[in-house]
């Protein structure tokens, strides 16, 4: 039976087992929306801005093992989506974006709502396609899902011109697809793995540094086994939080610009470093030359060869699927009679750093709400069991520091691109994936306004997200940098003329709460979380002067960390 390109597109999504498509209609995708209307397997979530569609699909993917799916129209539809696509690309999130395009005969004529979607997205997708023949739709969508999910995941765009979605052909969905130029790595090289094991045995000051790759490849069990088997300290990057249980003693906290003193010192002074699904980026190791001053052997395990030896020299590179590599490394270590070296002194040193850095500390107050206190309360009330999405800024760092993630895929944030406006739409995707779970969106009064319109989407689909806005009346992270590095000149970082967020939440049909007193934080949150079916917007009036500590200033080395001044 012949089907239109639009029907084929939707059929492909059904075949892929897609539950939700996040999107926004328009001229170039009308045929596809028509096909969507005439079936009920794939549900469409109508956002209020295309950027939010992409973040929602992204959140959905991050908290599950599925690819997020997006549908947008040509021109402004796809340009609005670009920020979301770049966000997903930077954090390697599997995603398929389907965009409408002007009809093939109009391409290149500056037609109404024409942009070169493939060109505009090229630097921020894993791959993209312009479909020029209706017969290619099915195989292209198959390829798109395969590419998005396999290897190092990432967003893939499929641009479908309007006439193509209206032409007809027979439908066959390929069972499998081969792309000759693309062979995602599987097992690691056994010889390299053996060498890695050898180094681990000799290490006296070992350190395990695990990133987002562990979460993406669902390898936290293997990572945990490795840490337990070796007795080594473990740190997670911002993207890796939850990859190793944060409440475990061997966890030294997050590292990097706002990492713990002990994590950064251990990273700097270790003699054997195992990097697992992490990429030594500038927010993690700071200044590369400073990092290289201490000689250490580096074992780097990653699925993407180009992540290895990009910023630091690596002694034992292992390219492969983390899960398979870690399994093999574990079995080599278990078979080995030799035990790992004596690292008691190293642990003693780490404990001293722990002591000196004082862990994560802040001075609580009975007068003014400290942002860290809000996050601690959130952690205590949810038993560490919530899905926490965040926006970008100080609140993001406090959430990362003070919420102890013991499980992967619970911490959902834009680490690579640092996209303000990510938190709320991402929370929508998470809540749709886990309808009964507690989903908290930690945000700031700056970030939330970048996608505040999604409160309307939340009402339409009855998403009972709990929004915790740490309202400091500043673009706090900008203010902090201006305080530290620009002589307290707070150029354009004060948020004037803020809306009444309680009324705003109510106008969108939700519950709003204004919380000003520290003693009200816990009762308010309890009340909010008891409202299982409601979205509650909590506007916490927090201390505008609070800064995020510790801090490794940009361009500095890990041991040049600034600890809190008043502790």
């Amino acid at each position, binding site marked *: 039976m012949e089907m239109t390109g639009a029907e084929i597109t939707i059929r492909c999504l059904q075949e892929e087992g897609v539950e939700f498509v996040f999107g926004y209609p328009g001229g170039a995708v009308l045929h596809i929306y028509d096909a969507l209307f005439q079936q009920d397997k794939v549900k469409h979530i109508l956002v209020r801005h295309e950027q939010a569609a992409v973040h929602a699909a992204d959140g959905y993917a991050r908290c599950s093992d599925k690819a997020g799916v997006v549908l947008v129209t040509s021109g402004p539809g796809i340009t609005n989506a670009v920020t979301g696509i770049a966000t997903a690309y930077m954090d390697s999130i599997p995603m398929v974006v389907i965009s409408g395009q002007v009809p093939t005969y109009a391409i290149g004529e500056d037609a109404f709502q024409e942009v070169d979607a493939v060109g505009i997205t090229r630097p921020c997708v894993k791959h993209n396609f312009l479909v020029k023949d209706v017969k290619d739709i099915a195989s292209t969508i198959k390829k798109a899902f395969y590419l998005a999910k396999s290897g190092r995941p990432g967003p893939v765009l499929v641009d479908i011109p309007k006439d193509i979605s209206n032409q007809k052909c027979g439908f066959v969905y390929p069972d499998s697809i081969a792309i000759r130029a693309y062979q995602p790595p599987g097992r690691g090289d056994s010889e390299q793995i053996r060498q890695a094991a050898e180094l681990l045995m000799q290490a006296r000051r070992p350190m395990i540094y695990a990133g987002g790759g562990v979460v993406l490849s669902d390898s936290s069990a293997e990572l945990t086994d490795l840490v337990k088997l070796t007795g080594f300290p473990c740190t997670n990057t911002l993207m890796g939080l939850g990859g190793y249980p944060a409440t475990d003693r061997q966890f030294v906290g997050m590292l990097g610009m706002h990492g713990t003193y002990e994590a950064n010192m251990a990273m700097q002074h270790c003699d054997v470093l195992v990097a697992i699904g992490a990429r030594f980026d500038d927010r993690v190791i700071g200044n590369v030359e400073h990092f290289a001053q201490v000689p250490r052997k580096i074992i780097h395990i990653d699925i993407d060869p*180009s992540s290895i030896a990009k910023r630091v020299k690596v002694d034992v590179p292992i390219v492969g699927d983390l899960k398979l590599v870690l399994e093999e490394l574990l079995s080599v270590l278990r078979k080995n009679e030799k035990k790992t070296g004596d690292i008691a002194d190293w642990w003693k040193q780490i404990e001293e750093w722990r002591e000196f850095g004082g862990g994560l500390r802040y001075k609580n107050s009975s007068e003014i709400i400290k942002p860290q206190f809000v996050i601690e309360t959130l952690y205590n009330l949810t038993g560490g069991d919530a899905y926490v999405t965040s926006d970008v800024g100080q609140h993001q760092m406090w959430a990362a520091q003070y919420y102890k993630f013991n499980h992967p895929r619970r911490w959902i944030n834009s680490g690579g691109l640092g996209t303000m406006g990510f938190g709320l739409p991402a929370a929508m995707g998470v809540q749709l994936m886990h309808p009964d779970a507690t989903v908290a969106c930690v945000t700031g009064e700056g970030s939330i306004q970048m996608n505040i319109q999604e409160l309307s989407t939340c009402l339409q689909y009855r998403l009972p997200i709990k929004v915790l806005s740490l309202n400091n009346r500043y673009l706090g992270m900008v203010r902090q940098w201006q305080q530290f590095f620009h002589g307290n000149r707070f150029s354009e970082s004060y948020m004037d003329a803020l809306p009444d967020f309680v009324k705003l939440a109510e106008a969108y049909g939700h519950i709003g709460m204004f919380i000003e007193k520290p003693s009200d934080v816990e009762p308010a949150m309890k009340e909010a979380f008891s409202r299982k079916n409601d979205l509650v917007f909590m506007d916490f009036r927090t201390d505008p002067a609070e800064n995020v500590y510790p801090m490794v200033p940009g361009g500095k080395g890990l041991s040049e960390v600034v600890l809190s001044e008043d502790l």
Partner: protein
Amino acid sequence: MRHIISLLMENEAGALSRVAGLFSARGYNIESLTVAPTEEATLSRMTIVTSGSDAVIEQITKQLNKLIDVVSVMDLSEGEHIERELMLVKTRAEGEAREELKRMTDIFRGRILDVSDHTYTIELTGSRTKLDSFLVAIGRELILETVRTGVSGIGRGNRILSL
């Protein structure tokens, strides 16, 4: 260091811009880039001349390999290889210079393809340095126009870039 990178890629619309985009986005340098379909119609072969430290060249080859349209990549300059470039030069050719130009062309094993009362158009193939030397040898004042294809390269002996 100068490197000659050879690659096979899908002969598809947009493949070239993915490679060119990669170089500009990551700030890699391109000295020349040539591309044409191969005997296998679905594949194009590209030769890129670039330069950079060993670390940069390593990243370039890895990043190229990562492109879904790129089938295989080889750094030709890592081993024995042949590099050739074609150049067409239009020169002023009047009076005594006519004889001298013909002589130089013979010495460099070039050919005169087109002759007019006042000009010669000379074809020359060879390595980049040979072409450069030819231009120096005939002297700037005589040159009216030059066009060069950029380097194409191939491995010697058993060094073969294939699927």
